[in-house]
């Protein structure tokens, strides 16, 4: 289609249509990311469509991506569901002349536009590094449990790449810098908060001295927190969450969750759209834009300064 070439020559792109493909459509993290993207779209006077699959999985994301490519938007913003498996499908977008920007995570080796590797073609990625997020969570955990004791990761399902990265970062940070913390096996709950709760209680029954849980996504965190509360262990066991939707924030306020690692999905979405627009306007963009993390806990959760990091639902 000539729309994109028109846009490139005009430098001030008109009628821009960008599609944002999240990892899955029903997660507050991505919903918030979309909110940020829409904010940018409004500011620029362009359209951002939100299209995605119901589960975080390459085999579901790829057909969505294919259909989006067929519609030929001016640019694609995508939160790829796997670093290697999305390379070939995204290549098709790039081959069709659609600029690709990845959000939340990278594909290939994560080094874009350096002339090497399979996943070299995306123009930029904007993310808070999930592995780093895991490390931040590990530090927050270590601080609260006094640098020793048993902890484990409550995880949704093996193979969800962003969560695998968080788990990895969490474990590595503890191994390297907090050797007195023992990491018990990860527990998978298939995104069922009820199972996450019962899993905590089973781990507790086995390890009465358990000190902390890292709930690596929304349902893992609120589930584990519920298990802790049901066992009357809120004072003894530290629960660290990931992401900052209101239900986690509420649990922080009520003391069920001690802290959570807020990514900045709205920022990611906002910068994503801005970056894509800049590309369409013919400007050069950095291949990597990092957004930070904010640790929310009972000390700062009511501060005005952090309210903007609380996700929408």
């Amino acid at each position: 289609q000539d729309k994109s070439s028109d846009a490139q020559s005009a430098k001030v792109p008109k009628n821009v249509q960008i599609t944002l493909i999240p990892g899955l459509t029903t997660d507050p993290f991505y919903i918030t990311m979309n909110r940020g993207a829409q904010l940018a779209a409004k500011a620029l006077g362009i359209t951002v469509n939100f299209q995605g699959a119901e589960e975080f999985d390459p085999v579901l994301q790829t057909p969505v991506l294919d259909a989006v490519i067929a519609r030929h938007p001016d640019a694609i913003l995508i939160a790829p569901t796997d670093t290697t498996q999305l390379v070939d499908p995204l290549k098709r977008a790039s081959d069709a002349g659609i600029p690709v920007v990845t959000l939340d995570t990278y594909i290939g080796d994560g080094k874009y536009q350096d002339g090497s590797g399979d996943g070299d073609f995306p123009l930029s990625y904007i993310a808070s590094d999930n592995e780093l997020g895991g490390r931040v969570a590990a530090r927050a955990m270590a601080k609260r449990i006094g640098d020793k004791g048993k902890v484990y990761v409550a995880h949704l399902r093996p193979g969800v790449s962003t969560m695998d990265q968080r788990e990895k970062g969490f474990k590595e940070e503890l191994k390297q810098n907090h050797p007195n913390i023992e990491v018990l096996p990860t527990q998978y709950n298939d995104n069922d908060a009820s199972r996450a709760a019962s899993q905590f209680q089973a781990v507790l029954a086995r390890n009465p001295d358990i000190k902390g849980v890292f709930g690596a996504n929304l349902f893992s965190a609120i589930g584990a927190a519920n298990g802790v509360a049901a066992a009357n262990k809120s004072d003894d066991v530290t629960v660290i969450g990931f992401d900052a939707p209101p239900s986690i924030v509420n649990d922080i306020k009520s003391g069920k969750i001690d802290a959570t690692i807020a990514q900045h999905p709205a920022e990611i979405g906002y910068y994503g759209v801005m970056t894509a627009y800049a590309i369409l306007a013919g400007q050069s963009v950095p291949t990597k834009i990092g957004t930070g993390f904010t640790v929310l806990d009972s000390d700062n959760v009511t501060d005005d300064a952090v309210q903007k990091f609380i996700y929408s639902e």
Partner: protein
Amino acid sequence: MANTNGASVLKPLLNAWSWLFLAIILIFFEIYAQTEVGATFLFRVYSIQAILTAASQILLLALGLTLVVVAGHIDLSIAFSSGFAAVVMALVIRLGGMDSGFLIFLAGLAAGIGAGAIVGLVNGWLIAHINVPSFIGTLGTYGIARGAALIVAGGAVVSIQNDSARVFGNGTVAGVPLPAIIAGVLALFCHYVLTHTKFGVHTYALGASRASVERAGVDVKRHLMILFVLSAVTAAAGGLVYTGRFSAGAANAGEPILLYAVAAVFIGGASLTGGQGTIIGTVIGSLIIAVIQFGLVFSGLPPYWQFIAVGLVIIVAVVVDQSRDRFSGSQT
């Protein structure tokens, strides 16, 4: 398959073999705990509470489903009638302000049950009046309820702060978690319906032969409507309990539990072809699932091995049930 199971289905007896199997699992884990861990597995209040609560969450989805399966049908939409109800309840409670009280909680409950009932009515209408096969009809409403829940919520989760709701999901009475009491009361009700009422007899007969019930002068369409409403409403109750427990109405609340709920019904002795199954069986099925999930985590088995172990126990649970039939002498 024209499965001819010799045992009379309607004998309202406890299924001794399944209880035994459940007991064996418990004893196994207890011995393991005493010898390997030097701790008790079961004789600790919060372990029992945890298992009961987890089992309740499965059971609530499985209760109405049991009746549907006995009638020879299936209801996949419970995966999301549950979430739809949860979201509607949370929204109604939110309408009353974030720190609202008991009345608005009751209104939320009623609205949630109503939301579930609507899904059930649609299912019943499709299956009874439009003759859509239940697998497809309820798969359709699965999608519809899912979309509706997400749209109504404007996202996946509606968090609330309501103390009545919190107690509803997390409170205990004499040490028994409220979710377990709610599930227990509903299970009693469903057991009564299935074994002691005309409706229950017709449900069994429907599973064996629709013609037998139709020609006997039963309004089968009405019967099917009620069945699917019942199924959606018990699933909705599961969603409401979930909302209470986690102070959040999640559209996806029921989806991960669907497979376990269906498994509980089948472990409990129901069959794809209909005509058999009991509420007691489903209760045991839910407990078995909750116990092995708990026990395997407790045992410290590596997570990937837990998937295998759960699979094995599910199979063994049914093989045990089969051998009972073999001993009682029936065969094809």
